């Protein structure tokens, strides 16, 4: 629990730096969606944020690949493909994911984000229950 709390605080610090310096909400799905959209003109900051994330990922991998990135679930390869599509489509339709709605939006006490977070946690619980039924375990 302590690691989760410290990790959460780091996430809070990162999104707070973004707000203080560039005045933006930090939502990963929004950052990605903006990069994919030809009409978006502000691509540079998105790329730098993602590069920072990837650099962090590199550090985590070099520190302890097994601790940070071990996938020990019953999910088949096809499950990651199905889930990825739903996450990509759903987050753009719903204007946000765990970071944009779950962290930034709830901190701003946005009614939309609180509603979205309750919904995606609920449908996540449902989805996992179906998954466990079909695949036997987590």
């Amino acid at each position: 629990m302590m690691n989760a709390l410290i990790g959460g605080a780091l996430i809070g610090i990162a999104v707070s730096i973004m707000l203080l310096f560039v005045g933006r909400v930090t939502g990963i799905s929004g950052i990605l969606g903006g990069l994919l959209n030809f009409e978006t003109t502000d691509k540079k900051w998105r790329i730098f944020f993602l590069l920072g994330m990837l650099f962090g990922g590199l550090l985590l991998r070099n520190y302890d690949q097994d601790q940070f990135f071990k996938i020990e679930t019953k999910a088949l390869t096809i499950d990651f493909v199905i889930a990825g599509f739903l996450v990509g489509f759903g987050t753009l339709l719903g204007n946000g994911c765990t970071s944009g709605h779950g962290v930034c939006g709830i901190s701003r006490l946005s009614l939309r984000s609180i509603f979205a977070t309750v919904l995606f946690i609920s449908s996540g619980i449902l989805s996992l229950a179906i998954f466990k039924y079909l695949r036997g375990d987590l």
Partner: protein
Amino acid sequence: MKFFIIFISGFIFSLGLGLSGMTQPHIVKGFLDVFGEWDPRLIGVMVGAITVHSIAYRLTIKRGSPLLEKSFQLPVKTGIDMRLTVGSIIFGLGWGWAGICPGPGLVGLLSGDVRFILFIGSLLIGMFVFQASQRKFLK
């Protein structure tokens, strides 16, 4: 300077994801497994992130403008609509199925594990399909 700060922010963000357990699908699934052996660890991520940002948000907004831009660019939409509802439900279905959301998926690319790569590849296709359908719908 501005882009260096954004880079550092992304860096801190991904360390937070890694440390908190968000990049490990079994921890995320354990958190969603409320009818089974519930793993409450991820409550810590929400509490930590929201506590810090709730305070920082209020102090920052009081300034009137961010340090390196003219104005804040915060979401302006209010009210709950069908798009928000359906989108959030679909996102949750995918999130619970693999135990991965967009941030941890991206950070996980660096592991070289093909499952993270497939997840993000498919996520980008999902986004692309959404944007293409919207352009068609708007015409």
